[in-house]
């Protein structure tokens, strides 16, 4: 079983259909589970062209499917698991507009992670990149994150996902503003810490669910630092525009691999369940280990 993960660089809806329609038809002929995730107007055009043949295709609007890269990986994986033993044939068109530069980096990382998360499946995924609309750096990244390139033959630009993720991490900066508020975490009883985070979340204007999720995430990072890290353990919180940032740090040195917490664990009993769930619970998680300790930074947008 090997994953077939290819990028297709196309120009405009007509060209999109030229590639996408035969791809989906072939999947239907092989009696696979066929999924088409695309942006409008491409999605509607696909429906029209496939007509009754598309009856068993799951058409999904990218706008709803690509909101949070860790969630999207989870959801694709759920599709694959639920389809087993049938093979999945997926046409995928991620959303590249409306993100900050930082968010865009995570979506590029996501494309690379697909190769890891679905490595032991025989799924076939073709990701659509519109050369007419997308900036050069995103098209360049597509070549680095997809082992295959439709219509272009060999792809020499592909980068191993672990190397690629490490490269993404090298682009991160970890400034912490001077006005960040520090709270020491000394007791294994995190009740007061949760109340503190809930209070900051409320003050920042987070919705109830987002606030509860942040509390769960910070609690996990703190429990982890207390268990595996070295004292002192503490929490910094600050606001950055619409974003509330909570960073749990300890004085230990955790050499986390660049894929840590990105790959969905099989169950809560598997290694990595905690950090993966933390990544689900907040908008963005950044890890850093250095001479001054290990830090888990969690961002939530208002």
């Amino acid at each position, binding site marked *: 079983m090997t994953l077939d993960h290819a990028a297709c660089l196309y120009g405009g809806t007509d060209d999109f259909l030229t590639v996408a329609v035969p791809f989906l038809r072939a999947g239907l002929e092989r009696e696979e589970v066929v999924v088409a995730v695309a942006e409008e107007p491409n999605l509607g055009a696909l429906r029209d062209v496939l007509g009754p043949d598309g009856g068993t295709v799951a058409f999904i609007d990218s706008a709803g499917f690509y909101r949070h890269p860790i969630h999207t990986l*989870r959801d694709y994986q*759920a599709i694959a*698991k639920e389809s087993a033993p049938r093979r999945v044939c997926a046409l995928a068109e991620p959303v590249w507009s409306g993100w900050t530069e930082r968010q865009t980096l995570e979506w590029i990382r996501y494309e690379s992670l697909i190769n890891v998360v679905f490595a032991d499946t025989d799924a076939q995924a073709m990701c659509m990149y519109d050369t007419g609309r997308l900036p050069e750096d995103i098209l360049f990244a597509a070549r680095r994150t997809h082992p295959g390139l439709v219509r272009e033959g060999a792809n020499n630009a592909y980068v191993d996902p672990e190397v690629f993720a490490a490269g993404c991490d090298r682009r991160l900066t970890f400034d912490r503003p001077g006005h960040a508020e520090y709270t020491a975490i000394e*007791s*294994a*009883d*995190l*009740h007061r810490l*949760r109340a503190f985070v809930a209070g900051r979340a409320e003050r920042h204007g987070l919705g109830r*669910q987002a606030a*509860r*999720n942040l*509390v*769960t995430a910070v*609690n*996990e990072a703190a*429990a982890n630092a*207390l*268990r595996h890290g070295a004292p002192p353990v503490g929490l910094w919180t600050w606001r950055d525009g619409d974003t509330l940032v909570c960073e749990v740090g300890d004085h230990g040195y955790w050499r986390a691999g660049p894929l840590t917490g990105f790959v969905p*664990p*099989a*169950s*809560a*009993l598997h290694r990595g*369940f*905690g950090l993966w*769930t*933390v990544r*689900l*619970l907040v908008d963005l998680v950044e890890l850093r280990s250095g001479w001054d300790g290990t830090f888990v930074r969690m961002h939530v947008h208002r």
Partner: protein
Amino acid sequence: MGFPNPGGGVGWTGPAPTPDGHSMDAPWFAKRPVSDVRPGDHGWLAYAGAEERDRVIGTFVREGLRHNEKVVYVTDAPADGLPGLDRPLDGHRIDVGAYTRIGQLRVISRADACLDRRGAFEPAMLADTLGRELGGAFAEGFRAVRLTTDHSWALSGPGRADLAQMLGCEHRVGDTVAPSTMAMAICQVDRRTCSGAELLALRDTHEVLIEVDPEFDDGVLRIVRTFEPHGLRLEGELDGARHTVLAERLAAVNRAGRRVHLDVARLRFIDLGGLNLLAQHALALPADEALVLDHLAPDVENVIEMVGWRRLPGLVRGAGAAGGTEDLGR
């Protein structure tokens, strides 16, 4: 000028009873661990079996004996077989004869306490019996009187008292206990002997629902044994500082060899280690068994839905307020 009455009006915001599948949520009831019973309480215990009864009533009896209070037990059972008397109290065997001689333990037969001369149930008699015991208690040197009786016999078998008589009896007992600064009563019924409607009607004549003392309560997490369904009720917040105690209690209820339900209606927070703990517990169960989570609160359910039930093998959703759920218990 009086104090503002916190119980007045419709805005009372005290804790609603946990949905337990039997009591309809009625906000005017207080649910109270047996050790928190206080004078003026006319309490109700509809037990699911001998274990629940013995744990509640045993504690009620023992605390009375320990605290220089008079214990009045209306029953035809022999005194030394009553709940709570079979185990040492503060390291000493309970000398039933001695407690009886000094009048601290009063075991009164049904005939003497609530039957008329022809052996028929007399609704007024139990309250009179209580009043009599109460009247003497202060002079006898006891600071309070605890009364308990099991009504199951009156509600089942031949010569069954009708519901109206029982309700009349309960109202009178309530009228005696409620204004008293010395009297506490727990009326017991084996819930298997009555219909649901009868249970509700009887319960409604009591102000306080009595339950077992919590297994654990540190002000953040509270763990309470449940008997029907078999399992634990978790209230508050579960985090790493409280994993060990929950694991111990889970292991203990699991030894009964029955499917374990966790009532998590009032569990406001569960950490990810807590989910791992539950999954580990479920993993140790036989292949066809499951750990049932009843009445999931939205905050906990949200975390579970986020990671997916698939990642919590052996955990199943049980009875719940949310629609489309099924009760997998029993």
